[in-house]
């Protein structure tokens, strides 16, 4: 399991780096094309918004992996280790449930709907479903990490932490 997690981590990191670098380049190109070339590009805005959704969604999965999402541990901090363990099981299950329900099923349904009904984006002329694909993909990743976490909790072992960045 640790090996699988490691490879998923690697792929996700690389993808996010590329997405982030692209979004900067795209918006710089938008300024350049208008300012220097005099002919503004009509597609950069939509590309940038699409990249933002992908960064937001895939990044959310990565932030979940590295345990960066904000929570409120006023109550759980005061619990006994046994109860903390039980609560951790429940909350991890909650996250997995949300990822599977809203992101994989809901987002997947959205991708399916926009694919079947052929909805096209305004500027790029690509299928909207490609844009929405970020949701189910991110949901799968979160569910994957969450399930690994659940396994480890169940066996009372530590999941290898993500490489420090």
């Amino acid at each position: 399991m640790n090996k699988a997690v490691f490879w998923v981590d690697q792929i996700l990191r690389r993808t996010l780096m590329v997405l982030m670098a692209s979004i900067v380049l795209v918006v710089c190109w938008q300024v350049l094309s208008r300012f220097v070339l005099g002919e503004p590009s009509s597609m950069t805005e939509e590309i940038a918004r699409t990249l933002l959704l992908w960064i937001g969604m895939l990044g959310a999965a990565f932030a979940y992996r590295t345990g960066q999402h904000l929570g409120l541990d006023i109550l759980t901090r005061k619990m006994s280790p046994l109860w903390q363990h039980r609560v951790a099981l429940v909350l991890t299950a909650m996250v997995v449930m949300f990822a599977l329900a809203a992101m994989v099923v809901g987002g997947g349904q959205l991708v399916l709907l926009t694919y079947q009904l052929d909805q096209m984006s305004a500027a790029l002329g690509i299928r909207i479903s490609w844009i929405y694909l970020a949701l189910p993909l991110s949901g799968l990743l979160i569910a994957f990490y969450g399930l690994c976490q659940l396994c480890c909790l169940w066996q009372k072992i530590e999941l290898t932490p993500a490489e420090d960045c």
Partner: protein
Amino acid sequence: SKPQEVVTLRMAHTLDQEHVVHKAMVKMAERMAFYSDGSMKIQIYSGGQLGSERELIELLQIGSLALTKVSAAPLEGFVPVMKVFSLPYVFRDSAHLWAVLDGAVGQDLLAALEPVRLKGLGYYDAGARSFYTTAKALHSPADLAGQKFRVPNSQTSVEMVQALGGAATPVDWGELYTALQQGVVDGAENNPPSFYLSRHYELSKYYVLDEHSMVPDMILMSQHIWNQLTPEQQGWLEQAMADSVVYQKTLWQQASDDALSKVKAHGVEVIYPDKTAFIQAVQPMLQAQQGTAVGDLVNKIMAVQVAPVAVPANIPAETTPVATPVTKTTTPTTSALTGGSDE
């Protein structure tokens, strides 16, 4: 007499409550309550509370929203032939537009929505879109050269501005005020009420009524929710819709005239250019559509003749309206205030 529960239909749009199109929807809700004797209710969500126009259409497909008012422009992404409305100078004037919308072509386009799970209930007037500029007066397409115009995020709008010789920059409608102020763009285009209500006239010196496109608004319903209604309920809804259309057209004309006189009072110079050169400049763009479904539709639309309005014989000729500048012949439309045809 009606022990059953009240059926509530949720209707969302992106305009604010001051907009005449919102008032027409309120009228529709009133008529709906009247016809159904209170057994059905339309609840209106204004101001884009429930999403942008593209997203509202999606919510109808999903089935979590019953009704919406959107500009025909974003429908292009769902039904490609809707592109015809965004093409420049397809309609000669308002009378021609309405002859088309009320005729076979208009009905066919409503029917074209069915395969994508939408029920088209009808059209609202949204006038004609024209350019406004912060510094330079435009009298012919040659004057657009070197000027940057904001367009909605659509390929057709970009092509149109380019065909006329200008540079097109897609900017979010909500960010347009500052973009005009800072000179990110030199101008934009919209119908008179949106030009007025968006307060872009505060930053504009000229409003050039070239009336390049007429993009109607459409009232859409979720096919899924429509199918759940009884034929009787569907009939009420169609009647309420028809009533609101009549009301909306009158309101629109007033709002459009009002908007023009208010921007003039504010010091905006309204220019009535000769449209011939504009029309010629976009011909290559229209030609390029030939052989496609959109091209066929353009041909059909061009072929539609407007039945002459019967003037009662006993009215003396002098009282019939004299042919006035271009403005009067075309009708205004609206697209939208906050989101309108823009996204």
